[in-house]
């Protein structure tokens, strides 16, 4: 009888340990999946920011002047290539051109443009990727 009871306790302890281990494993897997998704979102946002900043670097002076006086949300009115492109990715994650994006004319010659492109997305929180460069057309 004593031996049978010991085995039952042993099995219960074992099951409890396995349960705790599996709960911890699921937690780690959940965190990992969220981390991978966030990394992927950052890469997608970076790709969109890079595409847009390249379009601005190739832009003629008239388009750059237009961008300096236009709010980022309406940059596409200065040229179709200044839109963010696909605003959602394959998984339905949405990306937006952040209002902090800007094109500022200046420099000693007045022909230098300071360009900042910020692309944002919201998953568990709001994140953004900012790229900044200069253009002398």
């Amino acid at each position: 009888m004593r031996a049978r009871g010991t085995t039952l306790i042993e099995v219960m302890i074992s099951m409890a340990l396995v349960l705790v281990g599996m709960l911890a494993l699921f937690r780690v897997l959940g965190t990992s999946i969220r981390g991978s998704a966030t990394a992927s979102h950052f890469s997608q946002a970076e790709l969109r920011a890079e595409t847009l900043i390249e379009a601005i670097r190739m832009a003629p002076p008239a388009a750059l002047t237009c961008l300096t006086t236009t709010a980022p949300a309406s940059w596409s009115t200065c040229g179709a290539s200044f839109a963010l492109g696909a605003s959602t990715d394959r998984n339905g994650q949405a990306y937006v051109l952040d209002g902090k994006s800007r094109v500022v004319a200046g420099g000693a010659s007045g022909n230098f443009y300071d360009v900042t492109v910020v692309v944002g997305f919201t998953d568990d929180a709001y994140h953004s990727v900012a790229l900044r460069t200069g253009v002398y057309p």
Partner: protein
Amino acid sequence: MRPRRRRDRGFSLFIVLMLITVMVGVAATVILSTQQDLSVAGQDREALSAFYAAEYAAARAKDFLAGAVAADGITPASFAAGGGWTPILAQLTAAGAPEGCATGPTTASARMPWQSLDATTRWTYCIHNNADDLAYVDPGGSAPPGCVGKSADACDERDPSHVLTIEAWGAYAGAQAHVAVDVASPSLKTAAWRQY
């Protein structure tokens, strides 16, 4: 029966320990894989930010050159007839101007200290005569004539294509980028572009 049961005692705990070990292994692999994903994505962003900071520096260098061209009254006609970039090279080499390069054309380094673009991004540049200029390649030569008594660093008279090189650097956190831009006219259009 008794001795066998004693040997069996603790067997399920042993199995559980094995299972937990496997689970810890799986969890560790998953964590490492995620960390690697995030690290690669972060390194990509750092390299891209450093590259665009270098491009920012190149554009600032062109802006400086535009100011120098205007100040010297250089026109396309006077540029072609009067030794190309020679007047500006003379300014860049004289008195250690920050926009000039500290060393020769093949191993150029900036005199200008790093400038901050924001809290984590920096840029700098320097401008020099192009390394393929005949004044470097064939010093003392006479065809085409020019640069008599002048340093090759400060003379563009023997180069019919009149090329000037902008070396631009950008840095973001641990990443650094270096681009070189050749300009061959006072309009400062890019004639050639290289990334190192």
